[in-house]
């Protein structure tokens, strides 16, 4: 009797968890997103060096048009790379655990993630428009952190700690304008890798 009730309770708990949270997010997705950001960031450093620009000394950062295109391409490649591996590992994990992917909790998580991200994106475009590009790095970190904290209810709650770290980093970087690249590499590269490894070990 006791055995049956014990199983009932754990069944209830697991059904509540499975149905309300998106738990297929793989830690490896985080690691690969971090790696691509890290490699991309280092590539940008090298790119600047090749073009004879010292990132930390140039007082006015006026880049040639071709360099800007190259930087944008790098950004897009990083994003596609991270996105692609994020999906691959998540699909793999949900197959392994026999969980459906496209559920209402997945949609909820994506919506709650998207709201601050879209607002942040518009904010960054406005910063570019007003030629305050120096504020873009802190802004992306801050809005990304807020997005993660916002999505926390619909996935592993560990993600909020990553969110808090991004927010703190974003706040710090507000006072060190001009070092955006370094903060980006730490925030999107190093923190993602650390988070991914921790989550991967915890839920393996």
């Amino acid at each position, binding site marked *: *009797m*006791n055995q049956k*009730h*014990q199983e*009932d*309770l754990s*069944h*209830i*708990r697991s*059904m*509540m968890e*499975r*149905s*309300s949270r998106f738990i297929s997010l793989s830690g490896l997705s985080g690691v690969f997103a971090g790696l691509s950001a890290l490699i991309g960031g280092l590539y940008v450093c090298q790119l600047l060096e090749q073009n004879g620009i010292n990132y930390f000394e140039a007082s006015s950062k006026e880049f040639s048009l071709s360099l800007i295109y190259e930087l944008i391409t790098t950004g897009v490649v990083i994003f596609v790379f991270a996105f692609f591996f994020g999906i691959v590992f998540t699909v793999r994990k949900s197959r392994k655990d*026999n969980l*459906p992917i496209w*559920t*209402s*909790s997945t949609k909820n998580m994506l919506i709650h993630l998207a709201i601050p991200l879209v607002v942040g994106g518009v904010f960054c475009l406005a910063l570019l428009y007003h030629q305050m590009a120096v504020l873009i790095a802190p802004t992306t970190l801050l809005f990304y952190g807020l997005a993660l904290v916002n999505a926390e209810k619909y996935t592993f709650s560990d993600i909020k700690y990553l969110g808090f770290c991004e927010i703190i980093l974003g706040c710090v970087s507000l006072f060190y304008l001009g070092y955006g690249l370094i903060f980006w590499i730490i925030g999107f590269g190093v923190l993602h890798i650390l988070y991914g490894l921790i989550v991967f070990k915890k839920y393996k």
Partner: protein
Amino acid sequence: MGMIDQLNKDFESRVRLGIMSVLMVNDWVDFTEMKSLLNITDGNLASHSTALEKAQYIEVKKEFVGKKPKTSYRVTNLGRVTFNSHLNALEKLFKAKN
């Protein structure tokens, strides 16, 4: 045996426990999603959900999305209260034994 009496007979089956647990933490959940969450067959889900509907623990909504019929479920207030007291009874049972 007084405590066991407080356990609700309507929630004895694992499938019904599953349906109620899912609905406690979600708003409307549709048939296919429920089926894949609980990993059960169409007929199994249909019969258990009908039983829960008859007991007025859940609410069933049938609508058409395009040409496809879609069935969704939601927990009623009665269902919420009853399921909570069922959970409390289960918990008490453990406390008494330990």
